[in-house]
């Protein structure tokens, strides 16, 4: 990732610029009005720039989409590949759950089902990566990752 420099321009807006991997310095000047200028710095005078494009709000959105479109596609494909065969599930612990009050360690879920509990949501708070000493309470929602079969077993153990 190239380092992006931010420069405030009082009364005008803000300018962000960075050097591309090809060594060209380019920048985006955002006016208060939302109007944008795409500028390219000159090689013979690195302090001066040529305004390559004047963009209004709509233009910038379209340009950003065009520039980002293929990247978003690639990234999505990569995520799907990595998650092939792995599922994620949200399991609520009922009031009469056999595991209510017992800890993650006592439940031995990973040994028995191959499922990992990556987070627990309790009311408005989230406990990311709970340790073996974490005790379930009725009403908690366990966020679990594993094979589809493992997740079904896991839900059964929780009494859901």
């Amino acid at each position, binding site marked *: 990732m190239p380092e992006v420099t931010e*420069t*405030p*321009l*009082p*009364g*005008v807006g803000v*300018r962000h*610029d960075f050097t591309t991997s090809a060594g060209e310095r380019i*920048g985006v*000047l955002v006016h*208060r*009005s939302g109007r944008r*200028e795409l*500028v*390219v710095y*000159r*090689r*013979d*005078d*690195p*302090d*001066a*720039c*040529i*305004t*390559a*494009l004047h963009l209004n709000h709509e233009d910038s959105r379209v340009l950003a989409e065009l520039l980002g479109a293929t990247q978003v596609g690639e990234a999505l494909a990569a995520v799907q590949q990595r998650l092939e065969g792995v599922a994620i599930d949200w399991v609520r612990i009922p009031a009469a759950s056999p595991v209510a009050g017992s800890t993650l360690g006592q439940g031995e879920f990973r040994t028995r089902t191959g499922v990992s509990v990556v987070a627990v949501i309790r009311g408005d708070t989230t406990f990311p990566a709970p340790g073996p000493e974490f005790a379930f309470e009725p009403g908690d929602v366990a966020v679990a990752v594993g094979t589809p079969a493992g997740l079904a077993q896991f839900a059964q153990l929780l009494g859901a």
Partner: protein
Amino acid sequence: MRPILSAAGGDAALAFIELGAVVVGLALLARLAGRWGLTAIPFYLLAGLAVGEGGLAPLDVSAEFIGLAGDIGVLLLLLTLGLEYTADELRQGLRTGLVPGLVDAAANFAPGLLAGLVLGWEVEAALLLGGVCWISSSGVIAKLLSDLDRLGNRETPAILNLLVTEDLAMAAYLPVMAALLAGTGAADAVATVAISLAAVAVILAVALRWGQHLSTALAGGSDEALLLSLFGLTLLVGGLAEQLQVSAAIGAFLVGLALSGPVQARAGALVGPLRDLFAATFFLFFSFQIRPATLVDVIAPALLLAAATGATKLATGWFAARRMAVATAGRLRAGTALMARGEFSIVVASLGATAAEGPELRALAAAYVLVTVTGATVLTKHVDLLAARPQREVRP
């Protein structure tokens, strides 16, 4: 409006015809200026000379009427200037621009002050001339930078930060001068200056601290309501500031500063056209009062002063740009752009109306602004042409 117009001696019909003709004339000048890529201020000043006393076609319309419209023009100029900046930008600009700002003040205020003293003027008038030479024109320079596609350049933040510090310095300078001009004795003057500075500090602190509430209060309602509340508030605060001898213009500037967020943007768009109308009247009225004979007398001093302070502004821009590690070409671009003096120089000079050397100061300031605006525009465009050509075209 009618009583003021009738007070001029003529009837309303004649007044409307005269005013209408003048405004249409200003419109033509503004178009011409636009076509040449210049700001319209010098043209308005020339138009004022033409219709003023002893000019080509003197007007009969009451000076009182045009004068009041002109005063409102100053308030709106300052209001929109205040609207340009957010509180954060002011703090940031002041932090990075303090040292260049001090150099700017020392290098450009001193020549004007000296020139005034050499001309044998009173100290107050000489101090005003210092102010005329000190402050670059944010309006002219912003237009130049935008027209020449220089906003992305690396020397541009140096220029903009200098303009911010100058505008803030005005918030202290204008009330001090107003107090000095009103004061009778030395002890009296010190007291009034202290009071006016304290008032400015208090209003500035209130504006920056609680401006948010004002913005929220004004945010609701139609554009019409917002325009009227802004206009009324500006006149009110300006009038109160004037009562405290803080200068109405600064009151208006602080109202603009206090606004932030979406209201700030809306207000800027709404007040802009109104400002253009009244500010044109202000520039017109300013030179309206200049006798062409006085102008002829000040041409030589104005040229000398423009040359001297052109050099000091160039040095200031050079210094400020060098602090940002900008190379020679950029330093020259910054220095030449900063040479333009405009609306603030005229506002400062109009403060001196009551001083003994008022007429000379007025004429000198008008000539000086004419010379510096055209000089800076031509020079800074030329610097661009001198700079090396780009090595390859950027294709759209």
